[in-house]
């Protein structure tokens, strides 16, 4: 494993380009494009204000920088460094900005979620989507980029609109049976849309592409409900993590009363656990193991309990989860056998973990200067060789899985992994 030197970073904005050739990073109002292998600066752009969000277009030709305070989005081209584009929302304000899948349209969400403006880079046309829902995941694109789902709310009722991305025509518009829609997410196959309700109500609905309700699932009433969901790469299963520290692993085709597997997090039982020690290695401890269990404050909203993070491995073999009550541990479940596979217990609370896009390899960071890698063959913890403080809070993989960027509040570094020989 090789580590690059530290580079300056602000706002945890470090992104690999989709084609894997470049790495974009922001320092205050400057956007720096580097080559992935050499980390040499290819381009340097200066924006008008502190950049709050960057996103590559899907063809890696453009990159947008959003400045919410000023309400400006600036788009830069990699092919033509002279090319510039600035979208000013003015008094409408800007809350969120993202690319369309074709890489030629930018969707800006104005302040107070008044509307979503679709700016086109190809034509002069502008489209508006009214009444977008003010929720965490209000816009979702299918994997193939054909359709877009937008959550809307009119007259105190939730709706979902499906648009065709190629010409922005409304395909379907249907209401959902939710009290207060919290998020929408497409299945990887692009035919099923998962819609789930606010945490006050445990309800998840599955809609087909043509707007039909396929199924609903409600585990219980009155207690806090869904915290996070994840689609399996095969689109056959849905993992639902809830506030009661349980994961419901549901087969999409079947009706909810049948064939749901609930994984619970027993606080004192684990198949095998690796404990991080100060000498920076993993120990395997014997069952039963007890974990540090945090009971959240009862009178606060959004308590730190339940399953906060869920991620499937790309080969559909493992599911990595984090129980916010036990923030030091990553639970990795074997999906094929529907059993707990391994628990990684760290000394500090886990900040984030991400699967390698190509193979079942999990990278974990806990806010110190070490990066932890787990694969079914074993796990390793690596100290990043830096001078000074480097507290890794986020990481992101290169699309090929050969390297990853480790991001801290002020710096980032790139870690190059040895490519395993594939026979």
């Amino acid at each position, binding site marked *: 494993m090789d580590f690059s030197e530290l580079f300056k970073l602000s706002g945890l904005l470090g992104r690999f380009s989709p084609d894997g050739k470049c790495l974009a990073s922001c320092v205050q109002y400057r956007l720096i494009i580097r080559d992935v292998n050499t980390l040499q600066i290819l381009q340097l752009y200066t924006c008008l204000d502190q950049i709050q969000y960057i996103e590559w277009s899907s063809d890696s030709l453009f990159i947008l920088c959003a400045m919410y305070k000023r309400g400006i989005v600036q788009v830069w081209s990699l092919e033509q460094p002279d090319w510039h*584009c600035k979208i000013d929302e*003015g*008094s409408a304000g800007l809350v969120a900005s993202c690319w369309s899948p074709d*890489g030629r349209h930018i969707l800006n969400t104005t302040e107070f979620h008044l509307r979503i403006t679709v700016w086109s880079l190809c034509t002069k046309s502008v489209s508006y989507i009214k009444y977008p829902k003010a929720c965490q995941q209000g816009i979702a694109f299918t994997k193939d980029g054909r359709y877009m789902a937008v959550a809307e709310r009119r007259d*105190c009722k939730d709706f979902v609109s499906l648009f*065709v991305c190629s010409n922005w025509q409304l395909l379907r518009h249907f209401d959902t049976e939710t009290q207060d829609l919290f998020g929408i997410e497409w299945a990887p196959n692009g035919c099923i849309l998962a819609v789930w309700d606010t945490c006050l109500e445990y309800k998840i609905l599955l809609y087909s592409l*043509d707007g039909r309700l396929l199924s609903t699932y409600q585990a219980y009433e*009155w207690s806090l409900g869904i915290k996070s969901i994840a689609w399996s790469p095969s689109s056959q299963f849905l993992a639902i993590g809830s506030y009661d520290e349980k994961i419901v692993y549901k087969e999409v085709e079947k009706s909810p009363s049948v064939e749901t597997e609930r994984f619970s997090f027993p606080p004192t039982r684990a198949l095998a656990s690796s404990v991080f020690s100060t000498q920076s290695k993993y120990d395997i401890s014997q069952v039963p193991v007890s974990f540090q269990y945090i009971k959240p404050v009862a009178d606060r909203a959004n308590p730190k309990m339940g399953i906060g993070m869920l991620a499937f491995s790309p080969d559909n073999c493992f599911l990595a989860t984090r129980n916010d009550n036990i923030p030091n541990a990553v639970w990795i479940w074997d999906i094929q056998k529907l059993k707990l596979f391994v628990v990684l217990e760290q000394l500090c609370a886990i900040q984030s973990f991400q699967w390698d896009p190509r193979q079942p390899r999990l990278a974990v960071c806990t806010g110190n200067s070490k990066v932890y890698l787990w694969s079914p063959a074993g796990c390793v913890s690596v100290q990043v060789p830096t001078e000074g403080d480097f507290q890794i809070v986020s990481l992101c993989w290169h699309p090929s899985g050969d390297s990853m960027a480790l991001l801290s509040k002020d710096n980032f570094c790139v870690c190059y992994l040895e490519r395993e020989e594939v026979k």
Partner: protein
Amino acid sequence: MGDWKTVAVPVLSSDSKNIFQYTSEKKISPPNMNAQVLRLPLPSSKSMHSFFSAFCTEENIEQSISYLNRELTTLGFPSIYAESKGKELNLISIINCMNELLVLQHKNLRAQEEVEMQHLKLGSDMDHLQNCYAKLKEQLELSKREIVGLQERDRQLQSKNRNLHQLLKNEKDEVQKLQNIISSRATQYNHDMKRKEREYNKLKERLHQLVMNKKDKKIAMEVLNYVGRADGKRGAWRTDKTEARNEEQMYKVLLNDYEQRQKQLLLENAELKKVLQQMKKEIISLLPPQKQKPKERCEDGPVLSDLEEDIGEFNKENMWELSCETVREQLTNSIRKQWRMLKNHVEKLDNQVSRVHSGALNDKDVISREDHELETEKLELEIQQCKEMIKTQQQLLQQQLMSPCDDDTTLLLQDCYLLEERERLQEEWRLFQEQKKNFEKERRSFTEAAIRLGLEVLEKWKGIRKGTPMEDSITITLIQTKNYLMRVVCLLLSLYRELVLLLCKT
């Protein structure tokens, strides 16, 4: 008949026992005598005689006798007078009466004893019963007290139970109440939320209007030059056609997805069917041949034949025809049946094995494991022993053959053997010599005997040359001696032969 008056005679003040005597008072009898009789004290042991003498004195003999006679006759005894009227006493009847009275007296005494005994018995029984009664009364008291105690406890427990039930009910009610409160609050909050949301929407609308109306110059996009579309085509107008095409596209996507899934399922099905078929074949091969015993397994027979038919059918049909419903069902049903048969078979085998283990099986063909093991152990031991023997023999042989070839030792050894042989030979020679001597002696004796016999024969021959009857006897004797000599010679020869053999051996 006179009037009877029973009078209790007053008690004597002496130290004797009191005897109450009832005497009858007769009015007819002279009063002074009766009075005398009455006033007389009770008879004691001392004064018994005096009492007796007091009754009858010399003056009133006749009166006493008549009185006695009257008494006796009334009691049923015969009169003591000799005749109906007269002064002569019938001594015999008197004695009889006396005897009868004595017997009566004895009887009465015995009866009295019995009665007293019974009285005592009853008294003790009574005591015993009273004791029992007292004890039972105590026990009853105790049990009553216990019952009271238990009842009290039962009451307490029941009241506790009721309390707990009540508590439980209260808790349940509270829970229900809380749930109701929660739901009511939830609806209230929803309502409030909706109200606030409507207000918020109104504000948003207002804001939106303001923003749009302002025609803010700022809301614009500055672009150096427009970029071509990603797919390189030109933008298209939005028309109904495009809408229709969108719909079509969407349905195509959905259909694609379904088709893919169906393909996967078909593949899976085909795989599973193949596996099922294989399983069926294998199960059939595993099952024991059942055609030999049609009676016992009559229920399996037709099934087998069915199965064979099925196999034949399946082999003929194509794979995609197997998706037909009935055929599918047949396949699964037949596999189920076969699996059950196989299971039964395996269970039977298990039972057999367990029976053999317990030793209950009395079959000659089947040897119990323990016997088998013993036999094998024995055989192994034998083999071991034989091997050892062979080894030792080999060793000895080798020793002999490959004994250290030291000349002196060999010579010594040879000498040893020779010495042994020589000694043996000497021994035999001695024997032979002895026997020879014996034979010499015998030969001499035989020859002397033969000579003497010859001389006698000669003399007799000279003496009886004149007479012939002697010839026969002589010839006979001659023949006899000849035989005798022959025999001797044979004996000698055999002895000689033996000697020679002996010598040869050595």
